[in-house]
């Protein structure tokens, strides 16, 4: 692809992302903020699956970031953007501690173990009113402080402002994850996933890299949680329950996890289906139904996810002519 074409593509995408909230209704703008944050969640989830492990505790890690950031801002008075970073760091550290027991397991046992660990954390939030606020959680979390950029006055109660802010953070996160995947570390992740014994024989500590993937992915999930907490101003244990986890799992699987863009496609398509289509025809409660059927349908008929569909289409359009690692 010629350089200028790439530049035009990047500029067009940037313009589209900037213009997007202005063509939407107010409630759709809110959904857009959530979707942006969810993209970070689902992409960080994929980072973990690069080493071959599937967790059911990822959304709880998001919650750890949300709770930590909320508490730091509210009880300690930490400047909100800094609290968010510390929230992400807390999630990463909690993941590091959890990796000690969890990575004695693999496959299904890791899945169940991560669920148990996540539920324990969630129940601790529920049980201990101080400092976690019990079942009702934490309310009136400090919002992002407003500031004036000259060309745009950021008032973060407004979804458009928060969308720009979240977009910036999420893109930065995605960029780092993308770089990691394309770096030699990403190569080692792939090696650990597909031939763990051959990787060991090459001197790679499989456990160390599984831990690295878990810590990184949890850190980004925590960042996403912090973004969410300071936007809606409240966190509670139910926001991070297994139902949310299943939604993340659905985005990832329906989109496909072999490529970087697969989970993003899954998240965007399902959010649009859910929020635009279902809400318009008044079938919002049908969400689990649609998600469930899509999940079954994907596993049965499109095992590589929507990305595969895009991939086939792109062969005609040469849209993504370069095949990413781990693609079919």
């Amino acid at each position, binding site marked *: 692809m010629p350089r200028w074409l790439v530049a035009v593509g990047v500029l067009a995408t940037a313009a589209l992302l900037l213009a997007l909230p202005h063509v939407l209704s107010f409630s759709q703008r809110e959904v857009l903020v959530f979707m942006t944050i969810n993209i970070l969640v689902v992409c960080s989830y994929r980072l973990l699956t690069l080493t071959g492990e599937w967790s059911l505790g990822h959304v709880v890690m998001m919650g750890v970031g949300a709770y930590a950031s909320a508490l730091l801002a509210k009880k300690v008075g930490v400047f909100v953007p800094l609290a968010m970073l510390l929230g992400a760091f807390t999630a990463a550290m909690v993941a590091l501690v959890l990796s000690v027991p969890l990575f004695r397991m693999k496959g299904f046992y890791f899945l169940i173990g991560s669920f148990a660990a996540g539920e324990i954390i969630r129940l601790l939030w529920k049980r201990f009113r101080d400092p976690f606020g019990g079942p009702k959680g934490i309310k009136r979390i400090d919002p992002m402080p407003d500031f004036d950029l000259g060309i745009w006055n950021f008032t973060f109660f407004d979804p458009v402002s928060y969308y720009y802010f979240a977009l910036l953070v999420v893109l930065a996160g995605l*960029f*780092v994850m993308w*770089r*990691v995947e394309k*770096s*030699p*570390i*990403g*190569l*080692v992740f*792939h*090696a650990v996933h*597909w*031939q763990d*014994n*051959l*990787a*060991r*024989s*090459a*001197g*790679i*500590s*499989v456990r160390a890299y599984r831990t*690295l993937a878990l810590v*990184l992915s949890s850190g980004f999930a925590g960042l996403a949680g912090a973004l969410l907490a300071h936007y809606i101003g409240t966190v509670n244990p139910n926001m991070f329950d297994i139902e949310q986890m299943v939604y993340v799992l659905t985005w990832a699987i329906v989109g496909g996890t072999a490529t970087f863009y697969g989970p993003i496609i899954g998240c965007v398509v399902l959010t649009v289906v859910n929020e635009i289509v279902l809400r318009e025809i008044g079938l919002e409660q049908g969400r689990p139904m649609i998600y469930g059927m899509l999940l079954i349908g994907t596993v049965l008929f499109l095992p590589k996810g929507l990305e595969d569909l895009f991939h086939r289409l792109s062969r005609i359009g040469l849209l993504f002519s370069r095949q990413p*690692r*781990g693609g079919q």
Partner: protein
Amino acid sequence: MSEALLEVRNLSKRFGGLKAVDQLNFSVAEGAIHGLIGPNGAGKTTTFNLISGFYRPSSGSVLLSGEDISGMPMHRIARRGLVRTFQHSTLFAELSVLENAVVGTYMLYPPQTFAALAGLRLSRDDAAKNRARQVLEFFGLLDHADELARSLSHGHQRALGMAVALASRPSIVLLDEPFTGMNPEETRGMMKLMFKIREAGATILIVEHDMRAIMGICDRITVMNFGRFLTEGRPNEVRRHDEVIEAYLGKSKQNA
């Protein structure tokens, strides 16, 4: 005879009540091409897995350059210079040939996590690629560097498996049935490669079921049967050994 690089002492492995390896002793001299043979079920592969750290021994020990490595995890043993290959051309099928070799250089040039997070390219990453190309050239695979490993021919896949193992310049490499399924021409090519590997400075321990190929290249051969040491010697000594003939013939009678 030079000093032993690898020494196996009273090595035993039990699976439940079954003694897969029983009080095995042998040693591999530095710079040798050493064969470990025996009929099916003799415990060769288990021995191999015990040495490389894939299994933990029930008792006994494995010494590498005089240091006890028994019971260490596989990646630790690899870092001490003992690397193995796997049967059935185990490779990273979805990676390119070059990327496979780069994984093999992990111990020489371990990637730096923080550099990856920051998106920095380090000199060691380039060094890893150069070393990978070097080892591919050694095995005659440089022309295929950008192909996916799974699209290689069978013989090339076998060579790539060895390239991955040797990319880190191990002091000893354990080859798991390198001749299985090869035609005579491929076998000759593989034998040449082994001499080349030794010239490059690595000691070789081969586990092989097929006796013919191994006779031509090994300096010494250790024979196992029923998990125990049977005999050891130079190829022509082993070939004429009564019990070895019996062990193999007895087995083939059963198979017939």
